[in-house]
């Protein structure tokens, strides 16, 4: 029995992480990665390096069939070379797709050592660099999960509805590339995803186990990147929303940039197309990244976490938890300059 459950655990390094940023998160959820670095450095006292020479992992191009695997291997090898040159051994990719790409490349190298030698040669020919394979690859959500109990005493707020005293009801959604490529790489496997559920339970919330919990968010790369195919993408998202609607979730928590974006933005599109929203009042269900949630509960300023960039607005959720915010500062940037307010959607209330 013990051996059976080993497949649902994973090793997560304790300290000294090499961080790799995501291509798309900095555009859609720009506060999340900064918040993660702050949490690790200031709250947990960990050493994490944010190297300015990093670059894409080719994930989006690779999963859209426009980047060949040899190119992906070489690009991954260059990222590992950066880590090796900086003296780190624990790799932490911010994006779930990057995490999937790294675990896939490493599994290929494990099974076919000649591919690793090929990648070494390509990298040497291209830029005269050498690399070592990381000792540990963990997603940032794994690290937050690992230290969830250490973070709890530092938190100012809990996942409790202050009006009713009841735990907030949360839908958690893990990215497909987190645990569905190599199930042993995800906490709780793909069957019992626990990485986000563990955070929610530790911080006072209640996880909703709805029928389409393990369904894809709808991104699917090729389904979205070709405009004519986007109907498939949004149909998947709609299926999830219809499945979770009756459970009346307070918010959705995800660990993948694509899931975050699509579960958030498609709510607007579905509302415009079918005049349908998935909460009773017509505001939609807020979607948070795990870093945003952690930051909010730790008492970070919601606008510095980038919550104003969400499609479904988070003020009602913050009201429920009791997090104070200043509406007049919502669109003031880091430079102090006031940005124009976004246009209001026709059907989705904001």
């Amino acid at each position: 029995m013990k051996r059976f459950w080993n497949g649902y655990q994973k090793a997560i390094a304790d300290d000294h992480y090499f961080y790799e940023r995501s291509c798309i998160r900095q555009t859609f959820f720009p506060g999340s990665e900064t918040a993660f670095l702050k949490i690790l450095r200031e709250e947990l006292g960990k050493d994490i390096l944010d190297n300015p020479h990093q670059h894409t992992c080719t994930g989006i191009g690779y999963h859209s069939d426009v980047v060949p695997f040899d190119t992906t291997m070489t690009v991954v090898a260059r990222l590992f070379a950066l880590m090796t040159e900086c003296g780190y051994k624990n790799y932490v990719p911010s994006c779930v797709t990057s995490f999937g790409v790294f675990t896939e490349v490493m599994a290929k190298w494990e099974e076919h050592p000649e591919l690793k030698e090929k990648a070494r040669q390509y990298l040497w020919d291209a830029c005269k660099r050498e690399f070592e394979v990381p000792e540990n690859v963990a997603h940032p959500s794994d690290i937050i999960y690992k230290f969830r109990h250490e973070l709890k005493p530092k938190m100012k707020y809990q996942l409790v509805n202050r009006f009713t005293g009841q735990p907030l009801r949360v839908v958690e959604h893990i990215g497909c590339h987190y645990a569905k490529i190599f199930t042993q790489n995800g906490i709780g496997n793909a069957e019992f995803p626990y990485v986000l559920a563990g955070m929610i339970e530790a911080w006072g919330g209640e996880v909703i186990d709805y029928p389409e919990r393990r369904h894809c968010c709808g991104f699917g790369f090729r389904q979205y990147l070709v405009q004519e195919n986007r109907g498939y993408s949004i149909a998947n998202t709609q299926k999830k929303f219809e499945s979770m609607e009756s459970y009346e979730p307070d918010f959705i928590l995800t660990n993948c940039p694509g899931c975050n974006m699509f579960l958030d933005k498609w709510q607007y599109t579905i509302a415009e197309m079918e005049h349908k929203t998935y909460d009773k009042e017509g505001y939609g269900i807020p979607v948070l990244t795990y870093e945003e949630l952690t930051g909010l509960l730790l008492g970070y300023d919601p606008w510095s976490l980038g919550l104003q960039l969400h499609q479904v607005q988070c003020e009602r959720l913050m009201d429920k938890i009791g997090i104070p915010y200043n509406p007049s500062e919502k669109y003031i940037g880091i430079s102090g300059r006031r940005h124009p307010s976004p246009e209001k959607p026709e059907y989705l209330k904001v």
Partner: protein
Amino acid sequence: MNKFGFKISTPRSIDLDNGDRRLYDELVATVPSYRYCIGCGGCTATCSAGQFTDFNIRKTHFLFSRRQYDKLSTELLPEADLNKCMLCGKCSLVCPRGVNTRGLIVEMRMLLNNK
């Protein structure tokens, strides 16, 4: 075309639990050999009406067994228009499973008319 350039795709999966099983059960009760159909299409290949029209007897069987009764009408799916059958009975002669296909058409027409 809406402002997004695409629309939400409708799933084409058939959920048998959503259909009305009553008509199907009645058909099986009246023509028990219906259950032996293996969908080989011999009936359609030899169909007299099918030589001159787009009538497809095999398709009518499938639609009925999937409880998609609304498609068994003249306008939605011309090849499933049961009224095109001339009841010649050739299909019954070629059926390798001995299904009473002619009786099946007659019974389906009656059930759908009385629905």
